[in-house]
């Protein structure tokens, strides 16, 4: 059972829809018992960094997640804002993130005025190292992105794949049982299905 953590940031029904489609058992919950009972967690999220952290705090989920993810090594996959919250901090807000990865989140900065922000649309990944999350994914795989801020890893070993938009930025990261992707697999057709299936089966 995978629990999609419901912390009131944007629509998460589409993640459940896709997991159903690929035959993965999942629920949506912010309940402590559900989160403890589940085998894996998905941390979704759309919106602002501070709002995300505030909501996690208000629901009393931060220490619980620390316990599950750090002490019990429960696999967790952060999606979009959910990935960014894995970092220590973000230029978008003044609150600390979950700080599980030695990373910061920064705004896109370009010299090229033709590049619009947000980075919105379908883009590919440039794999940097092997991981069970990337099983069977190749450079033809494309994913749907919508974001104005991006991850910056202090430890390049945490980077599974980069994506190019003006320059390369980390679009898939992993540190042990902690995974994050900047794009929306739930909106990325069969490519997203493959990635979520990998997380459900191999991670």
């Amino acid at each position, binding site marked *: 059972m995978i629990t999609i953590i419901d912390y009131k940031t944007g629509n998460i*029904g*589409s993640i459940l829809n896709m997991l159903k489609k690929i035959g993965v058992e999942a629920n949506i919950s912010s309940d402590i018992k559900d989160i403890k009972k589940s085998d894996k967690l998905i941390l979704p999220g759309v919106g602002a960094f501070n709002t995300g952290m505030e909501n996690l705090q208000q629901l009393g989920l931060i220490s619980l997640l620390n316990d599950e993810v750090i002490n019990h090594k429960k696999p967790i996959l952060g999606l979009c804002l959910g990935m960014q919250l894995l970092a220590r901090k973000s230029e978008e807000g003044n609150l600390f993130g979950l700080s599980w990865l030695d990373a910061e989140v920064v705004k896109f900065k370009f010299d090229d005025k033709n590049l619009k922000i947000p980075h919105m649309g*379908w883009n*590919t990944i440039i794999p940097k190292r092997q991981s069970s999350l990337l099983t069977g994914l190749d450079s033809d795989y494309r994913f749907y992105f919508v974001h104005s801020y991006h991850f910056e890893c202090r430890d390049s070993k945490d980077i599974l794949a980069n994506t190019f938009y003006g320059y390369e930025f980390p679009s898939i990261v992993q540190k042990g049982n902690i995974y994050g992707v900047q794009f929306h697999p739930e909106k990325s057709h069969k490519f997203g299905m493959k990635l979520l299936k990998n997380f459900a089966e191999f991670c």
Partner: protein
Amino acid sequence: MLKTRVIPCLLLQNDILVKTIGFKNPKYIGDPINAIRIFNEKEVDELVLLDVTATIENKKLPIKILEKIAAECFMPLAYGGGIKTIEEIKQLFNLGIEKVVINSCAAENPAFIKQAAENFGSQSIVVSIDARKNELGAYEVIASSGTKSTGKNPVDFAMEMAMIGAGEIFLNSIDKDGAMTGYDVELIEKVAKAVNIPVIASGGAGKIEDFKTAVDAGASAVAAASMFVFYGKNRAVLISYPTQEELKKVLS
């Protein structure tokens, strides 16, 4: 590299899909759920679904249909038609829809766009502009599915919308709607140059090469309707979408 988004735009009228020419003479296309299922299988980049009579007839949101569509739509989905309240937007997002497209309400009450962007983030708020050339050769924004003159100039209006929080401009040429003779390049150039948010070009696409023309004129994404639902001279209904290879050849 970021791909140029190629977006089928489907028109909903009383729960069935139609296609217009110059915003008139709606022709029956088929059942929306079936059509979207086909587009889903064809792995399209994104879908825009517009209820074209929602504002004029002051209709409620077609929640039942949208719910069914969202449940099996594994791509970004935008809905537009008659949206007037924050509560309605919330309802749409809860169904699994990514973006809302706002047209008439943006022209009548710009403050609504600001409020919507503050609530949900700019990336989910698309302002749709239907433009037509008047007798003097100047472009004008026309609201309510092409029935209400606003006296606004699309360039100024797009700049205003971008400033108050719109995330994208869905720019539609009424003159080119359904014509399949190519986009209104002049309109795209003018608007895209004026704003720093993505402009989705719409109205007039008849062949894949037209996409390139729109992108060269400054569009960040391209939408098409007739091209993806009609086949041949006689406009027989057939849902199609170019392959990634075909798109790559033209757009990269």
